[in-house]
């Protein structure tokens, strides 16, 4: 829920900025002339890491993972973007304890919807990805679920692990997020992810409870979710001019 507040405050600040810019134009009637401004826009490869996965690796005993993110600016608004990562996750409940580990890759595009001010290069974007994961899943132990086990007073517990190898999954993903330049070439970003599972290899007599990159699966639907918090650095490769024609007012 906190993340919503955060988005709200960010969006609010964006709106205030936009309002301020309109107020600046709405002044006394004066003669206007066009003024052409040219800003240099940096194009290049932005590389970063998902800090939330790193932080979680430290906090959560049942999780280790990292993700490297990258995007490359193609046009004014379109970026080619991708993530590559590795995760290990242990899930446990009353009846099962399982560990899933593996790597994933996501590739796609980001489209920036934010009209930047002056020479700024912030993003409020929507992204589309295709994700693929290869992983293995180990059933560490499990208990046979028997509602009548009170009668013979036995909880049958299977301790020997079984490993399900070379599992794969493929999914499509929608992202909404923002990236902001904190200081020169250094960006911070957040995003939320909605995932739709296209295909997966089902292990025999078991199911994929967790898929690296996709996160936990749900019994009743093929949808999943996630979020990211990235810090990234832009390696500028070339610059392009951004031409802004401004109406300027001068006193007659």
């Amino acid at each position, binding site marked *: *829920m*906190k*993340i919503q*507040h*955060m988005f709200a*405050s*960010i969006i609010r*600040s*964006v709106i205030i*900025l936009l309002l301020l810019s309109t107020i600046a134009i709405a002044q006394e009637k004066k003669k206007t002339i066009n003024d052409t401004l040219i800003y240099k826009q940096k194009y290049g490869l932005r590389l970063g890491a998902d*800090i*939330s996965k790193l*932080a*979680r690796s430290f*906090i*959560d005993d049942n999780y280790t993972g990292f993700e490297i993110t990258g995007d490359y600016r193609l046009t004014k608004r379109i970026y080619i973007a991708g993530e590559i990562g590795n995760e290990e996750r242990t899930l446990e*409940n*009353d*009846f*099962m304890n399982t560990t899933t580990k593996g790597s994933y890759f996501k590739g796609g595009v980001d489209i920036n919807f934010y009209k930047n001010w*002056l020479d*700024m290069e*912030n993003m409020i974007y929507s992204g589309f990805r295709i994700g693929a994961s290869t992983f293995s899943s180990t059933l560490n132990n*499990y*208990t*046979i*679920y*028997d*509602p*009548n*086990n009170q*009668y*013979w007073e*036995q909880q*049958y517990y*299977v301790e020997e692990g079984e490993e399900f190898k070379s599992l794969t999954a493929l999914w499509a993903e929608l992202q909404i997020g923002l990236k*902001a*330049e*904190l*200081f020169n070439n250094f960006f*911070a970003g*957040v995003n939320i992810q909605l995932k739709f599972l296209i295909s997966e290899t089902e292990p025999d*007599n*078991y*199911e994929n*409870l967790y898929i690296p990159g996709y996160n*936990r699966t749900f*019994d009743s639907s093929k949808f999943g979710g996630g*979020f990211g*918090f990235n810090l990234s650095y832009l390696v500028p490769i070339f610059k392009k001019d951004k031409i802004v024609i401004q109406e300027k007012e001068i006193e007659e």
Partner: protein
Amino acid sequence: MKRLFQKKYIIPFVLSLIVITTLQNCERDDICAATTSTTPRLVIEFYDIDNPESLKNVPRLTVYGEGQILNEDGQIIEPIEASDKIIEDYVNESSYVFNVNTNKIGLPLKIDDGLNNETITTRYILEKDTNQRIDATGESNTDILEITYKTEFVYVSRACGYKSIFTELSVTRDTDSEPWIANIEIEETIELTVENENTTHVRIYH
């Protein structure tokens, strides 16, 4: 004003990050619904030996596992109403199959009999005319069922984990000078496998 993100926004960022990470740690526990088909009991129906297609109540039946009814010293005794190892009624979980007229019972099977064999044995005592023993007006008639089978563990769901089904089922009655059970038949349709409780597995004729 050059930058959209000033210092004051970094703190909410980090805070929300921490909140989300902690929330992820306590995911909603999925609960195994009672309606889910998990490890089944062995479902037995009692039929009339003279009219094999019609159900027939066993008068004053009491059912319990062999060696399950013990006194305080750990010795095997005959059950009384307060004994806690009488099996539950098939339909009504809060009543027990003690001294009742019934034509359907469900027997919990052992998943492990401690013998480490592939084939597992569970033995049940079926006592007819329990009232005669209790009232001391006569004798009850006890027959012992021996049920043997193999177990097979089948994945159910994230919430329930695995269940056991029972294959290669065989049900026999111990030889007895005065049996009340005339014949035992395993339903052909189940193919010797106890998979769920939706169907009757065994017919006992008496």
